[in-house]
């Protein structure tokens, strides 16, 4: 009922709007405004303009797309959504259910997307069995970034399990360094929490408790254990961390103030900008206990229904271009992630990216490939928000592990 009425609204409004838009044009809402990202978007724009499609840029940055989503919602309500918008994960399904998204299935069929994309990625891009979105990249979130220099000075070794992490971090702390560089913002707290969940509980538990939201798994001893380890980490973070941006935390690892950071592969860009080389100046390994697992975070563009047939064509041209190997290469070299499409030439990517590509393929076979809940890939915005609240509050207080578990169960239940 609702879907229909909204769809009708959209249809009615777009009839009014249609004459205003020009032929063959895409209006793209995104929040990629910084250095490398902006360059990548500009590259896509250039490619499209080469094909006679003009690009209307609608950039709204801030807080991982929070402002952009507000804008998108008010545009949708006013019956005037953009041609394409940067949306990801389960949100694509929600927009699909509300009847806003356009099928680009024919582009996908002609270009054989089903064989180019891994199943976990293409599932996210489809609504009702049809492609409505195109992926630009795959981020691995469960990375540990380390400064080997600091480890050497502290006589510590890079940890491979969380139990080991605590031992090594103590050594580092005793040697006068900050063990874990961290920015105390909700999403960063959630990113570390996620790494602990995966490392302590393993992919199967992760999948059950944090993707399927199985209450039995969530309300288990394992969850309490997760909170215990997560709580232990409080002592390894410096007191000034609350509110710190993630890139500032990364620079603490770069300049040897801190030993480690747990952060997605976008952190690599900071090391590269500072002139550091992977393997020698910094080390990238899977976060403790997750070497056979991969939490993925896929950025994508979803396509909104257009009434103008020229714009529909432009929309499809854009979809095709996004999955083209040129764009996938340029974009992901700039952003530190790996291409969403498989089987691309690897030589221009660095060793961290190679590790990521290997883990992506192997973890898909062993069941270790899981969506990141800290980055909106696993559960609805409401549930991931609830997890954020519990994780960030827990990490910044001295709540007990048992209490943490109780709060988490209650928060998730209320948000479902």
């Amino acid at each position, binding site marked *: 009922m609702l879907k229909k009425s909204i769809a009708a609204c959209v249809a009615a*409004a777009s009839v*009014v*709007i249609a004459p205003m838009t020009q032929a063959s044009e895409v*209006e793209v809402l*995104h*929040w*990629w*405004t*910084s*250095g*490398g*990202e*902006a360059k990548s*978007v*500009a590259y*896509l*724009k250039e490619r499209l303009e080469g094909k006679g499609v003009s*690009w*209307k*840029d*609608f*950039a*709204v*940055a*801030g*807080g*991982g797309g929070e*402002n952009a989503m*507000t*804008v998108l*919602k*008010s*545009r949708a*309500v*006013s*019956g*005037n959504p953009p041609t394409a918008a940067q949306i990801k994960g389960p949100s694509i399904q929600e927009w699909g259910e509300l009847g806003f998204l356009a099928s680009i299935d024919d582009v996908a069929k002609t270009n054989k997307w089903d064989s180019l994309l891994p199943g976990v990625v293409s599932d996210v891009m489809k609504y009702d069995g049809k492609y409505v979105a195109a992926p630009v990249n795959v981020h691995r979130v469960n990375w540990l970034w380390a400064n080997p220099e600091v480890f050497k000075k502290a006589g510590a070794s890079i940890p491979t399990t969380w139990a080991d992490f605590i031992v090594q971090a103590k050594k580092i702390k005793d040697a006068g360094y900050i063990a874990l560089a961290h920015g105390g913002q909700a999403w960063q707290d959630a990113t570390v929490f996620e790494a602990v969940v995966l490392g302590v509980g393993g992919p199967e538990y992760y999948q059950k408790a944090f993707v399927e939201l199985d209450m039995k798994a969530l309300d288990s001893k394992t969850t309490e254990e997760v909170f215990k380890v997560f709580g232990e980490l409080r002592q390894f973070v410096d007191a000034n961390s609350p509110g710190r*941006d993630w*890139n*500032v935390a990364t*620079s603490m690892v770069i300049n040897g103030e801190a030993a480690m950071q747990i952060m997605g592969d*976008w952190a690599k*860009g*900071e090391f590269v*900008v500072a002139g550091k080389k992977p393997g020698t100046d910094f080390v990238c390994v899977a976060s403790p206990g997750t070497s056979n697992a991969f939490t993925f975070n896929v950025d994508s563009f979803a396509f909104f229904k257009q009434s103008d047939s020229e714009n529909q064509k432009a929309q499809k041209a854009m979809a095709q271009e996004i999955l083209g190997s040129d764009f996938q290469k340029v974009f992901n070299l700039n*952003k*530190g992630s790996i291409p969403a499409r498989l089987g691309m030439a690897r030589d221009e990517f660095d060793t961290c990216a190679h590790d990521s590509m290997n883990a992506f393929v192997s973890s898909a076979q062993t069941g270790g490939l899981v969506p990141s809940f800290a980055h909106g890939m696993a559960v609805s915005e409401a549930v991931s928000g609830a997890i954020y609240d519990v994780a960030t509050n827990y990490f910044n207080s001295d709540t007990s592990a048992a209490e943490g578990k109780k709060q988490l169960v209650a928060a998730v239940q209320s948000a479902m």
Partner: protein
Amino acid sequence: MAIGRIGIYALLLAFAAVYLMPLYVMVMTSLKDIEEIRQGNLLSLPESPTFYAWVKAWGSACTGSECEGLAPFFFNSIRIVVPAVLISTLIGALNGYVLAKWKFRGSELLFGALLFGCFIPFQVILLPMARLLATLGLANTVTGLVLVHVIYGIAFTTLFFRNFYVSVPNELVKAAQLDGANFFQIFRHIFLPISVPIFTVTIIWQFTQIWNDFLFGVVYSGPGTQPITVALNNLVNTSVGGKEYNVDMAAALIAALPTLVVYVLAGKYFVRGLTAGAVKG
């Protein structure tokens, strides 16, 4: 007594220093290069001041897939702010005139309702307003954005003018009426000439509010008409690859410059304007 005065001066200057600190930090940072910011002291003077950051923020910093700095958005803002300020001020003047001197049954209630109504958190109205603007055919246009600013600015402009006009003696209005002057004649010949101070106050207030607005600007603008605050937000909110704090600060200062200039140049009239209307409720 002399000691007392020294104490007063000391206190006033101490407060002035505190008030100036954030501005000082911003200006200094904008003049340093990125290396110096990384290692440097927050309050230290730049070793070799450079305008690199200012030039980049104005003309070549990225705010999306385009990298033309804040310059184009600066003019977008002006196109929004000027009409919005003028219209809301004029309406406020007339409203205030009526509410102060032409009271009718329920006019006080109306005024109270207006004051209370603007306590609605603006985040709440985003979606219904978007729908309303679409119905009016004004979605994502400059006109629509101006309309929104006018509507939510009226409460305060009305408050300012009403409080100011209340202090005009009723006898003056009555005498003019006896002379046969009508509603608009009284406004034009008696009220307008004495209104310069309160116009100054209201225009400064509205200019500041609308120029600094981000929420309405981001939601109701379209591509190509985004105001400067949206561009600033895009510029500052970099998530990847080397944050340039000096450029951020220079951009922030550029965005704040018009309001700062207005306060510095017209600040005197601001207090004078408030003086004229302040003591009468």
